[in-house]
């Protein structure tokens, strides 16, 4: 008999907000010394009341719109009770009864084709804190910086059949969410719970389901799915064990899953609506405003850039990061030519970042500065090599393009007269080489050329130097 895997995903995504979901502490999971982004509210002290961050609601709506969900007109926050030291109130505020988005879908493309994955719901909730276990003292250290950082949880239908589909789905969510400024999706900001069961192909009934909790790296998720599917197959086909519905944990080192039976004997979360947070009523108007102010999608940007004459490769690179598109749009808005702009961002900036072991996503330059450098080069004020030099100084020394050119005499080096002065100086200072060249040793030209380049600190335009050298040498012969 052939079996197929039935896989569903619960994906937690940290939202790109300035502040936490119910208080005004800086909301970012990975920043700050332990317990420095904490107030009485997110430390669970009594007396503070939650007030919802409006941007969280709007980012959740954005996600729902991108995943073709119905946006609820009436949505509530509910309390989920359980004890764990990372949960300061012993309850988590989440959405249980009326989640903000329902019934969506997303298409995933793998080498086997395109499939549509159903989205059951998206809901908002607060994150828990961070625990660090100290084996030496047998203690656990508690850090509340991450408590109340806003999350959305995207609950898929059990529509995945392979790990490849799951990978494609997660990659797609990542791109989509980064691009729409919903989440920065960096390491740890996207975490998955994976539900798996198997059944004979062609049948409808679901087998025993296990859930693997809290994985954040794509490679762990892939290996966990492969391991767990194989375990289920062995159990069903070769009776290696009896499957039970349970929660399991993926061990990245041992490369297998383990039962977490000890932790959750009775998952009875006693949900009820939070009396401190009245229902949120979402009007048609509000949804429309969110749609209208939503950053253009990858597809829309691609079409726009095609029209501007960019190559497929350039488009793919630019649309890999929202920030690159924003920079490109801003620089072209300042009047720079699109093709040239793409080349400066991808080739020149990209090259310099690589040299400094950074990636494109880390590029930080103002559109004004990049535009100014491009202008200097296209206006022949400086040559392209000098332009690169200015760019690097702007990127890594926080230099101002004009001031840098002036301080390093760069503008002058575009000027033939100044280069001619250098050439004449080199000819005067190296009479031996001149004599050799004039005596027929053509190799001596390289030495003279090198001398000029050295004098110009590598900033001269080789063609101009070559031409002037030849011109001046011919005058001497």
């Amino acid at each position, binding site marked *: 008999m052939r079996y197929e895997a039935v896989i569903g995903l619960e994906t937690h995504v940290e939202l790109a907000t300035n502040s936490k979901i119910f208080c005004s502490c800086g909301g970012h999971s990975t920043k700050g010394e332990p317990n420095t982004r904490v107030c009485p509210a997110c430390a669970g002290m009594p007396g503070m009341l939650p007030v919802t961050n409006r941007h969280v609601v709007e980012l959740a709506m954005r996600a729902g719109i991108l995943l073709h969900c119905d946006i609820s007109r009436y949505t509530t926050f509910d309390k989920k009770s359980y004890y764990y030291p990372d949960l300061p109130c012993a309850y988590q505020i989440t959405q249980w009864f009326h989640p903000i988005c329902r019934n969506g879908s997303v298409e995933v493309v793998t080498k086997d084709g395109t499939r549509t994955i159903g989205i059951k719901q998206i809901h908002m909730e607060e994150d828990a804190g961070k625990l660090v276990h100290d084996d030496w003292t047998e203690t656990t250290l508690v850090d509340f910086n991450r408590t109340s950082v806003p999350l959305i949880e995207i609950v898929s239908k059990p529509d995945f059949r392979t790990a490849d589909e799951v990978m494609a789905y997660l990659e797609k969510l990542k791109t989509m969410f980064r691009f729409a400024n919903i989440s920065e999706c960096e390491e740890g900001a996207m975490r998955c719970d994976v539900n798996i069961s198997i059944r004979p192909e062609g049948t409808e009934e679901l087998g025993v389901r296990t859930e693997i909790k809290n994985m954040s790296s794509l490679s762990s998720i892939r290996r966990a799915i492969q391991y767990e599917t194989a375990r289920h197959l062995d159990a069903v086909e070769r009776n290696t064990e009896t499957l039970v519905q349970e929660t399991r944990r993926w061990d990245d080192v041992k490369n297998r899953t383990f039962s977490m039976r000890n932790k959750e004997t009775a998952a009875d979360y006693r949900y009820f609506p939070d009396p401190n947070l009245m229902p949120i*009523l979402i009007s048609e108007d509000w949804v429309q405003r969110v749609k209208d102010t939503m950053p253009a999608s990858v597809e829309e940007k691609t079409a726009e850039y095609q029209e501007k004459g960019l190559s497929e490769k350039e488009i793919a690179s630019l649309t890999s990061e929202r920030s690159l598109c924003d920079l490109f749009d801003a620089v072209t808005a300042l009047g720079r030519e699109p093709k040239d702009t793409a080349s400066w961002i991808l080739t020149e900036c990209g090259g310099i970042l690589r040299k400094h072991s950074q990636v494109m996503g880390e590029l930080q330059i103002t559109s004004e500065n990049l535009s100014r450098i491009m202008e200097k080069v296209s206006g022949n004020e400086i040559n392209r090599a000098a332009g690169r030099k200015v760019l690097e100084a702007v990127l890594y020394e926080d230099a101002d393009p004009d001031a840098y050119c002036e301080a390093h005499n760069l503008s002058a080096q575009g000027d033939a007269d100044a280069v001619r002065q250098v050439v004449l100086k080199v000819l005067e200072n190296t009479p031996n080489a001149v004599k050799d060249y004039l005596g027929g040793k053509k190799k001596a030209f390289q030495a003279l050329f090198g001398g000029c380049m050295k004098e110009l600190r590598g900033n001269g335009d080789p063609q101009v130097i070559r031409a002037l050298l030849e011109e001046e040498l011919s005058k001497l012969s």
Partner: protein
Amino acid sequence: MEITRETARYVAKLAKLEIADEDMESVCQGLGSILSYMDDINATVGADAGSVTGGDCPTRPDTVTPSMNRLMLLDNAPEHSDETLIVPRVVE
């Protein structure tokens, strides 16, 4: 309504409480009586009655205000280091 000791022990476990044997009787009784009142009410209130109340939730803008001094958190804690609260090791 009958409330068994088993039920009482189950909810006590959820609430991280221990109920002494001599208190069990009155806990079960109290719980039973409130639930029997509930039964009376179920007779009065139809299943179709809506529980939904109106009201639009006020929201706040996404701005950051300074967090509190960490010392104020640690000062109140029964056990702590210079940076964190401390509890017995949690087994995953």
